[in-house]
């Protein structure tokens, strides 16, 4: 087996005349694309690879050996909730009766799929303490953006002189850019927040105002009060992660939500760290109005090397009308066919399941063509059904126990900047002994040598040498102990042989990469590399 990096690119394995497919030959050839005017056809054939099947199979199998997944080993990547991705969920998501469904087939022919969507939506609402979810957003950041859109739509509908949004969306061409009718254009975000929060706010046309943290990493409520006094009537929302990015529960969360509500703003819950709370508390009960959940974190769907994820957005009662379309709804009518789930594409088309030809504006929000990453929803729903009400509530406590255990066992060698309980993850500020010059980066690279994925590093930004560890509820004490031993060993190595750590990794398919070269002189395709 070729386990070294030095795989070729698939283009380098190509040879003219080889093929890796077979298609039927008996079809009606009375029309060919040669009929199309030459001006509409491409000049040169696309230079795609020409490979036989086995070459392709070996190539990608070998590539997979240069990767590291949850199935390969412990993945203590903070804030990413690298859970076990149950195999049975993959089997269910691969059922042909799901993968073969066209999204525009009549609702009566796909009730099973609609039921998955509807029931998952309801389950999430119960787990979050909110009223209703849309499952359409494809990722956490997509969910954040969608949630902020919902918040802005709510404020627009409440601005004086405005009809409820729905017929207004985007129609007024004369309105100057950026001049939304809602008036509230500021969003408060703690300085410890995930980078996506301010980025999503900016994409949504909101102005970010940073709320300071106290030395213990929690929100500075006095600073928040001062900001609300200054600009409360312009605040659309405050975004919060709880437990925050340091893994610490915000003790004054109720006070915070109350203050923001009093000022007329809504509370947004970034669900990235929801795993800690399953079984112990719910965002809705803390006063949050809108939130997203990362199904690929809290509900065990695989990260797939960066996606597909799924970022459902939930809202409290009274905000449901602002959720995006299409929606899957259960009609209130009883009697024949009354139980049938329906697809609603737009407010103006409640009675029709047919997409309007014209795509008129003023049809509510939409953040994707169809219903989001349905295949991912299937896995999350299967996970919830497997856990059931009795095991879902163990998730938060066990994840939290694992993180606190790690904290107590590592704090002799790694600097714990904040005392007290953590939730599902723990943040250290590098090694206690900084005299060796060994950095968090070095420690994380040395971990690769020992067969572990690295923790999240240099985030949160509050500390210089952040090293964030999240051991999920799936990890056994033996796994944690073995990792802890290696962390201690690396701390020793830092003292006895710092060069060994600083030049790590040594046992991986490749050494440290030259990031600067890549960015200074971008080569992002094979074609560009040929010009070199």
């Amino acid at each position, binding site marked *: 087996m070729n386990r070294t*990096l030095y795989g070729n*690119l698939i283009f380098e394995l190509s040879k003219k005349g080889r*093929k890796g497919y077979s298609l*039927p030959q008996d079809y009606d050839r009375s029309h060919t694309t040669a009929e199309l005017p030459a001006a509409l*056809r491409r000049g040169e054939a*696309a230079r*795609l690879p020409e*490979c036989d*099947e086995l070459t392709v199979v070996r190539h990608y199998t070998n590539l997979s050996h*240069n990767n*590291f*997944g*949850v*199935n390969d080993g412990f993945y203590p*990547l903070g804030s990413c909730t690298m859970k076990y991705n149950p195999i049975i969920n993959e089997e269910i998501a*691969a059922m042909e*009766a799901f993968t*073969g469904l066209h999204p525009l*087939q009549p609702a009566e*022919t*796909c009730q*099973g799929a609609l039921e998955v969507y509807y029931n998952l939506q309801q389950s999430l609402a119960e*787990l979050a303490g909110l009223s209703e979810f849309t499952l359409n957003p*494809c990722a956490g950041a997509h969910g*954040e953006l969608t949630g902020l*859109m919902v918040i802005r739509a709510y404020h627009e509908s409440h601005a004086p002189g405005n009809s409820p949004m729905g017929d207004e969306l985007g129609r007024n061409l004369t309105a100057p850019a*950026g001049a*939304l009718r809602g008036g509230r254009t500021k969003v408060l975000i703690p300085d410890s927040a995930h*980078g996506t929060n301010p*980025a999503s706010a900016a*994409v949504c*046309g909101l102005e970010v105002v940073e709320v300071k943290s106290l030395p213990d990493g929690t929100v500075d409520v006095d600073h928040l009060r001062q900001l609300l006094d200054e600009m409360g009537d312009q605040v659309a929302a405050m975004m919060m992660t709880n437990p925050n990015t340091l893994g610490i529960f915000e003790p004054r969360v*109720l006070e915070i939500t109350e203050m923001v509500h009093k000022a007329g703003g809504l509370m947004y819950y970034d669900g990235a760290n929801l795993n800690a709370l399953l079984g*112990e508390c719910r965002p809705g009960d803390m006063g949050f109005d809108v939130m997203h959940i990362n199904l690929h974190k809290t509900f065990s769907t*695989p990260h797939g090397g*960066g*996606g*597909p994820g799924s970022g459902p957005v939930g809202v409290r009662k009274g905000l449901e009308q602002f959720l995006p379309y299409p929606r899957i709804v259960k009609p209130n009518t009883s009697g024949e066919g009354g139980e049938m789930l329906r697809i609603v594409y737009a407010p103006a088309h409640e009675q029709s399941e*047919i997409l309007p030809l014209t795509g008129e504006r003023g049809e509510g*929000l939409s*953040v994707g063509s*169809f219903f989001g990453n349905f*295949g*991912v929803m299937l896995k999350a729903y299967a996970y919830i*059904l*497997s856990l*059931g*009400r009795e095991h879902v*509530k163990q998730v938060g*406590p*066990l994840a939290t126990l694992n993180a606190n255990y790690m904290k107590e066992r590592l704090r002799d060698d790694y600097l714990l900047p904040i005392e007290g*309980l953590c939730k599902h993850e723990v943040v250290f500020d590098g090694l206690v002994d900084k005299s060796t010059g060994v950095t968090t980066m070095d420690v994380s690279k040395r971990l690769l040598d020992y067969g572990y994925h690295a923790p999240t590093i240099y985030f949160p930004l509050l500390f210089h040498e952040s090293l964030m560890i999240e051991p999920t509820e799936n990890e056994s*004490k033996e796994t944690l102990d073995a990792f802890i031993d290696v962390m201690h060993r690396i701390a020793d190595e830092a003292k006895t042989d710092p060069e060994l750590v600083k030049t790590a990794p040594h046992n*991986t398919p*490749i*050494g440290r*990469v030259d990031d600067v*070269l890549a*960015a200074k002189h971008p080569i992002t395709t*094979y074609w560009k590399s040929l010009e070199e």
Partner: protein
Amino acid sequence: MFKYFPHTEEDLQEMLSACGVSSVHDLFADVPEAVRFRRDYQLPEALSESDLRLFFEQLTHPLNAQLLICFAGAGCYDHYAPSVVENLIQRSEFLTSYTPYQAEISQGTLHYIFEYQSMIAELTGMEISNASMYDGATATAEAAMMAWSNAKKATRVLVSETVDPKVRRVVETYAHFHGFPIQLVPAENGVTSRAALDKELSEGGVAGVILQQPNYFGIVEDFTGIADSVHEQKGILVINANPSDLAILKTPGEWGADVAVGEGQSLGIPMTFGGPGVGFMACTEKLIRKMPGRIVGQTLDSRGQRAFVLTLQAREQHIRRQKATSNICSNQSLMALYVTIYLSLMGKEGLREAAEMSYAGAHSLCDKLLATGQFRLTFPGQPFFNEFCVDYDGDLDALLSEAVECGYLAGVKVGEKTLMLAVTEQRTPEEIDELVEILKRHKEAEV
């Protein structure tokens, strides 16, 4: 105990005592009592693996999930994919890994994304591709935002009415909140009205123009000269293209587009009720630093070997926060792998052959439908690829229901009288004939 939780009673005791507490609930002592959740969730009880399987088997009973012979498209297509694709996708090293931040143990992902970017660039005729996006609609919306941020004194972004209304709606939603106006360019006989487009362009202030190829109605539009007019305005041209047709059709690059976007589902990804698919975005080298999303670049490692790495991250949210080009911090990596493996197998010839078959099937179906005398082309005289619209004078809903009874999804109703049908290489000549027969029979019965 539960199969996904390894903690024995003994483990729990040892760990709790290391933490200095006596119960896991004590670890939540910092949570105010008022927000502690003290009841059971209203959820079903846990299902065993076999019960879980039974549950989903029931949901997928033909009464609940009917697999229809698919003549529907409208942005989601029933294409063939070699079985190798699905098999390799399931390799857990790909499936269960995270975003490839740790390049040393993520060369598998980084390597295939580099191949993916190369393939997308080649198919679209563009210089640069990102590592993929959520879907075709959001990729188009991101392109609209790119156009807006690139423009100095623009007043609006133009979108042709022949762009998929579902995509337009997403673009309009993003634009509304981001804070720029979208203006619709009307269609004429199923294609973008050149007169209307020219008039808008002559008025100035256009940050970008968004077109679709083939357009929503399946028509292959002639974009000759548009790029020049848009560039005169300092605007950018965005073409949303169906990548499987680009084996044959003139590429966005050849049309002079600055950004090519689209939905990649037609490249080997199952329909799965509309998702996950994969959005793609490719652009000119000039725009690389304005592009959202991940990008993988080639570099060297400390041992002098070729290696791949996430690059140009200074554009991204985890560094730039609110000043980032976009809030996107993931991609549809695994779906990009579908596309990469699919294109590796189909290759230069296979993609062209599949496109040729789809074209031939659609034209054959169209001829046969017109020959029944019950249908007429909605947009006569317009060249189409593998999807087309016909008008029907009878009760279209009844016609579609009748087809479903016979196991056929006869297309998508896109107007009171208008049916849009798509044909892929998966549709056999027999299926095409049977569909025509069903539709014909229905009309006769109706009369």
